[in-house]
């Protein structure tokens, strides 16, 4: 009898044993930090050597929001987001439409277009930097092309702000395109071809087919890409480091995430409180934009209600 209940107890506990490893890892490295970062951000004057602080309040947030480095990082990140998200989404839609309209080479091109996804951001970033860089030996490949078309060469890596912004936008777009092309090509392929045939019989022009059938049918995926695109671009860091090196403040090209890491570590580091405050500000920005995006897409997709096939 006693044995029986013992067995029962063990059966009850067993599922938790299966979950234990995941809970330990996630608890220590995800859940606990979540609360901890909030506490850090409120501890004023935290000293990482002595692990002491002398007050609780919003000072860290005030400091970060007044820090010119943070404001410049904020500006850089916003420009990056506003340029790369629409451009990469639009461009990948065009490319996916093109891919879907051809038969020959389609598999080959899909493979090629996906390549940037599986490359090391830092490594290929170095190649981009060299292609754009102006050195005493050579103006760099891109500048030579600009000169060929009659333009004046620019130092993209250490030159004017807009030139640097151009490089980083181009590289970010190059990096994020594979994912978007992949998602959009499969979304386009999943539209029932019969719909186009029906529309063709009714004399629908190609443009109208695109705006009245294709676009509404794939709009949930486009919204998904815009949301993930926003989140990804707001967290830009590795690709910027790849082009401009670790000292992003010196290059004037820091991003919000870059600012967080700088506060944490390196020559300017040792301020986990400031880093935490900046991280939470980033989180709030991303959350706000995601919620706005979701609200817009809800409104749009309410007109899509019942849009799925049974």
């Amino acid at each position, binding site marked *: 009898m006693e044995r029986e209940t013992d067995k029962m107890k063990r059966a009850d506990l067993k599922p938790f044993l299966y979950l234990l490893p995941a809970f330990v890892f996630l608890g220590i490295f995800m859940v606990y930090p979540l609360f901890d970062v909030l506490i850090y951000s409120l501890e004023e004057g935290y000293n990482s050597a002595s692990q002491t602080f002398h007050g609780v309040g919003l000072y860290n947030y005030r400091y970060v929001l007044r820090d010119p480095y943070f404001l410049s990082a904020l500006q850089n990140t916003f420009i990056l987001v506003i340029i790369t998200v629409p451009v990469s989404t639009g461009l990948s839609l065009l490319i996916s439409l093109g891919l879907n309209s051809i038969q020959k080479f389609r598999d080959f091109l899909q493979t090629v277009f996906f390549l940037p996804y599986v490359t090391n951001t830092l490594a290929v970033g170095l190649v981009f930097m060299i292609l754009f860089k102006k050195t005493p030996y050579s103006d760099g490949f891109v500048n030579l092309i600009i000169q060929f078309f009659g333009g004046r060469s620019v130092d993209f890596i250490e030159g004017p702000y807009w030139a640097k912004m151009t490089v980083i936008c181009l590289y970010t777009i190059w990096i994020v395109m594979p994912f978007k092309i992949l998602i959009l090509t499969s979304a386009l392929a999943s539209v*029932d071809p019969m719909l186009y045939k029906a*529309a063709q019989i009714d*004399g629908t*022009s190609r443009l109208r087919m695109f705006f009245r059938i294709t676009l509404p049918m794939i709009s949930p995926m486009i919204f998904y890409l815009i949301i993930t695109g926003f989140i990804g671009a707001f967290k830009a860091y590795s690709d910027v480091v790849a082009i401009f090196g670790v000292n992003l403040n010196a290059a004037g090209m820091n991003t919000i995430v870059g600012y967080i890491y700088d506060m944490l570590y390196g020559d300017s580091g040792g301020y986990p409180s400031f880093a935490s405050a900046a991280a939470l500000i980033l989180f709030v920005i991303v959350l706000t934009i995601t919620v706005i995006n979701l609200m817009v897409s809800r409104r749009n997709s309410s007109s899509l209600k019942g849009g799925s096939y049974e």
Partner: protein
Amino acid sequence: MKIVLDNLTKRFPNRNRKIGGEVTAVDHFNVEIPDGELVGLLGPSGCGKSTVLNMICGLEKPTEGRVFFGEEDVTDLSPENRGVGMVFQSYALYPHMTVRENIRFPLENRKGKDRLSKEEMEEKVMEAAKLVQIDQLMDRKPAEMSGGQQQRVAIARALVKRPGVLLLDEPLSNLDARLRLATREEIRRIQTETGITTVFVTHDQEEAMSISDHIILMKEGVRHQVGKPQDVYDDPVNLFVAQFLGTPAINVFQGEVKNEELFIGKDRVLDVPGAGDGDVFVGIRPEGAALQADGPFALKLDHVEVLGRDTIVVASHPSFQGENVRLIIPSEQREEVSDTPRFVLKPRGVHLFDAKTQERIRYGKGNR
């Protein structure tokens, strides 16, 4: 509008690239569909009937041959210039649009002076919706409707621009059995009301026979027979047509004609005046034989199936091509069925086919 298909041929490159070459889906297809009729294009799946339909509406270009609507050659016209309405097998309704928007869609494509005002469009949309009796569901989305309702929307969308020709691809195949009966009556009614020349494709002979003015039988891209359903049933030109029409199917035996007499096995079963000597296939319709104690044609009984008014005798015979012979007798004769029932054959329900060409061999007066 009259539809004429003149030597219509469609060849596709072989799908399996390793084999290469071409597949002929439709082979020199000739047919004339009279104005205002409902015509069933009937054949086993993969016989090319959908390809014929696609060439009529212009979604596919024929490799050879012409398509005429009335006197006009429309072979080179794109679908939108042909004035056809089409209902697809899957209905192809736009899932993100309401019923109203779906039906209105074809009208919105018109440009310039052909463009209708909003009120005119709405009027036409409602007219089409009323015709198919879905005017109560105008603001639903396709996913919120039953299969039968979706089909009505698809028909309304095809009819709203007043096409000269209406084409339906397997219109009933996605419906359950109960809805099928109702829907085919509905298609007949709509066609009669509008008088639009209508062609529908099906692999279900019962469906085609029940509502068509004419049926066209095809197999492997070739037209086999065209005619009124009853005429084709009574007077098939070859073994394929005879076998494809009718439930239960025609019973086919190996037989031989000697001196204008038909033998199945050793039994001399029927006089066939005018038929030449040689091996034949004998097709006996289930209703083409009558139970008679001293009849010339003996079978071995397997069992009987009771249908109520009629009874089916399920039996076997060494010369039979297939599993079981099925013959229909009136139920009051059921008690007379012995273990070796004997039948007398009725010439009207017995067809002979050349053993080699499978073409029909005509004989006597009873079997024209």
